[in-house]
């Protein structure tokens, strides 16, 4: 608009923030400011300090040095609720809503529904909830229970809650990782709408392209310091520039695919049907990376889980090395040499309370016996330790301590542990479901490099991903899945983002 920079009032300044933890300095004198009516993108690898900074903003942690200036006045944020009352709201990655309560109740929880002895005027809150939802273009009945809603709508409920609290600053933390392309568009539009209403936004995300679509400025954190600020008002900042600031490496390394000799068919699926999946058939050859792209809800995970016995299937045949195998439970698949890296590593991938060693050896623990006494067989600790140490170093898991409980590892390293456990099972066919989701750029690249190594070892890799560029960058062949069916197949040379997306977004019901 017309006025110069000097007029823009800064609504939030986090000034010279230092935070130390035993063994690591998470934030080294970081200063971040947000202007009124601005969308600020905050990016950086895991461990760069983003979440620590946010936790300090919301009073979950206390800074060792530095201060927070909100609307021109220094404040001490005592708790997330306090932050909300100040006008700073948080929309986290995992929506913090009560699933059994309705939208309206969730929006006003702890706010107008706080004095337990006052009578609630239901009609009022339902009406007010409706108004808020319509600002966000959501046309769902406010009396609907949260658990009946999709993740995308649940997120918007959290935004509505922020509006109810008259938020002047809303922080979105990785909001789009669980959303499909259409829902992401919708959310980005909501952000722009909020900006129009005078609300500032901090958009924290690993999806840099999305951040660049809406952010006015982008701040890059690296190793606890602010290393770059990009002015993106013209929306001309490139992905490459930002990534380079984030990882101080060249972005050509982003998709490290190399030519690998491809051999015979070692894995085949025929006529797989069940749930929403309909008659899926495909094959993978040794040394090949087969990419499967599809929007959220296209049935990719369902299909993968049926192949490895995590979910029951109605019909379908599975062949490994030409031999038909019968998979009724996960251990059948493991014995046949299949591995499945789940989409949700915290839920299905790791036992967080167990250490790295126990997690890695879990699928094949029965093979690590020193004596065979069925269930009471003692474990050959020496063999196990060797196996675990080998994989820790091969995957460069940090910290390289087999005794560390996995819940203390960063997202990227947790994912490496999950990968390690399936590599240790000597699987010949690896089905990776969103292997680089929710982890930092550096780790993403490492995992992709590992995929290539696996292919080089003659394994078959199935890469299920909703990151179009990743699928196109890493695969030898690309399958497109929609409405539970395989609707297109492309060779690496033929596949373009446009073609693939075209097939993915159509309806095949």
């Amino acid at each position, binding site marked *: 608009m017309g006025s110069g920079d000097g007029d823009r009032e800064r609504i939030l300044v986090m000034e010279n923030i230092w935070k130390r933890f035993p063994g690591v300095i998470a934030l080294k004198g970081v200063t971040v400011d947000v202007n009124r009516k601005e969308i600020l993108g905050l990016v950086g690898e895991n461990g760069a300090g983003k979440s620590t900074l946010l936790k300090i903003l919301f009073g979950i942690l206390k800074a060792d040095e530095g201060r927070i200036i909100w609307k021109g006045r220094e404040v001490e944020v005592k708790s997330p609720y306090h932050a909300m009352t100040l006008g700073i709201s948080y929309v986290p990655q995992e929506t913090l809503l009560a699933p059994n309560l309705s939208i309206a109740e969730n929006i006003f929880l702890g706010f107008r529904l706080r004095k337990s002895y006052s009578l609630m005027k239901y009609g009022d809150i339902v009406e007010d909830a409706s108004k808020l939802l319509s600002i966000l273009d959501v046309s769902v009945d406010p009396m609907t229970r949260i658990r009946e809603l999709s993740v995308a709508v649940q997120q918007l409920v959290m935004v509505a809650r922020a509006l109810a609290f008259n938020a002047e600053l809303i922080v979105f933390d990785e909001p789009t990782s669980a959303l499909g392309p259409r829902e992401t568009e919708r959310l980005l539009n909501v952000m722009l709408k909020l900006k129009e209403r005078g609300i500032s936004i901090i958009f924290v995300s690993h999806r840099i392209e999305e951040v660049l679509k809406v952010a006015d400025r982008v701040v890059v954190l690296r190793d606890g310091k602010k290393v770059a600020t990009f002015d993106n008002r013209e929306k001309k900042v490139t992905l490459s520039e930002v990534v380079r600031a984030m990882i101080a490496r060249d972005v050509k390394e982003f998709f490290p695919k190399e030519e690998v000799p491809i051999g015979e068919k070692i894995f085949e699926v025929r006529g797989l049907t069940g749930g929403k999946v309909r008659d899926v058939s495909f094959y993978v050859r040794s040394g090949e990376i087969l990419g499967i792209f599809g929007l959220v809800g296209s049935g990719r995970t369902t299909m993968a889980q049926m192949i490895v016995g995590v979910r029951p299937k109605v019909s379908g045949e599975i062949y490994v090395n030409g031999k038909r195998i019968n998979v009724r439970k996960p*251990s059948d698949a493991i014995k046949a040499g299949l591995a499945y890296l789940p989409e949700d590593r915290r839920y299905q*991938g790791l036992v967080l309370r167990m250490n790295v060693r126990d997690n890695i050896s879990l*699928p094949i623990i029965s093979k690590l016996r020193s004596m065979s006494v069925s269930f009471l*067989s003692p*474990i050959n600790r020496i063999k196990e330790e060797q196996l675990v140490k080998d994989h820790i170093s091969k995957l460069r898991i940090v910290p390289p301590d087999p005794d560390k409980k996995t819940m203390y590892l960063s997202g990227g390293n947790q994912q490496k542990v999950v990968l390690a*456990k399936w590599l240790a099972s000597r699987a010949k066919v690896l089905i990776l479901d969103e292997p680089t989701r929710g982890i930092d750029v550096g780790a993403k690249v490492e995992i992709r490099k590992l995929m290539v190594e696996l292919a080089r070892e003659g394994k078959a890799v199935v890469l299920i991903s909703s990151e179009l560029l990743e699928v196109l960058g890493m695969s030898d062949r690309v399958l497109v899945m929609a409405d539970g069916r395989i609707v297109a197949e492309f060779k690496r040379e033929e596949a373009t983002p446009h073609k693939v997306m075209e097939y993915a977004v159509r309806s095949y019901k």
Partner: protein
Amino acid sequence: MPKLQRFTNLFKGGVPEFNITLATVILALIIGFINPKFWTVSNWLTILRWFTGLGLLALGESMALIGGGLDLSVSAVASIVSMVFAYLIEFMGFNVVTAAIVALLIAAGIGLYHGLFVIAFSPPLPTIVPAFIVTLGSLILVSGLAVVMTHGWPIVISKEAATVASLSSTPVLFTIIAIGTIFIIFVQRYTVLGRFLYSIGGNMEAARVSGVPIHKTRILAFVFCSVFAGLAGLVFTSMLMTGYPGVAAGQELYAIASNAIGGVSLAGGEGSAIGAIIGALLMTVIRNGLVLMGVSPYWHDPIAGIILVVAVGIDLFRRTRGAR
């Protein structure tokens, strides 16, 4: 890790069992100071007798808890084993060994029943929900059956008395609890079953996806628990020389308390039998101390209760504080 850090780490909960061992030792010293009779051989024999029974219950319970479940019926299982054992010896002329085996098989059967019920409903429910329900039912049902057997009359053991009595002789008691403890610790830490159990207790779904046999493992955990409860029943029977339906009554809660104090999380997946057994020792020492200090017996339970809440509270506080 530098030596000093390693040492202070012990106190900070790096080895959770260390704190309660220390607490037990300090408590023993305090009680012994107040009443030197604490240090007599006969007192320690008494402690051994109480400790063996509770210890066996706690060891079995730890298997159920680590797998994410719970067994409220251990005292009832001890009762039925006691009654069946005495009945077989006294009224059916069985010899001690056969009677013991039959009685323990019944205990195993009860464990099997618990396991089957649990796997029928979990997943999707978390293990502890059906476990709580079925073992609570057993607690009532099985105790009732133990009473029904003789309409409430205890069975005094006169046949094979010498053999039965020898079960609770000091060396035998010591051996039983020592072997029991070593066995359970070995199973939990060094066997495939132990690993499966911890993974199921920690995250049943991740364990399932990793190929862990979640049904067989949990059934075995419940069977272990009930068999150890049965062993406790045999020990109690021997101490009283009577088959008694009220044997170990109320002890199931102390068994769970021993585990809680010992760091075995009631949520599953954490802690070990080492903690459980030290917790049982601590509870026994507390009870012994209360008696020696002349505290009215009516106060024993309330005091034990307070100590339990404080001890578990400290442990939980220590654990959650780590999140900051």
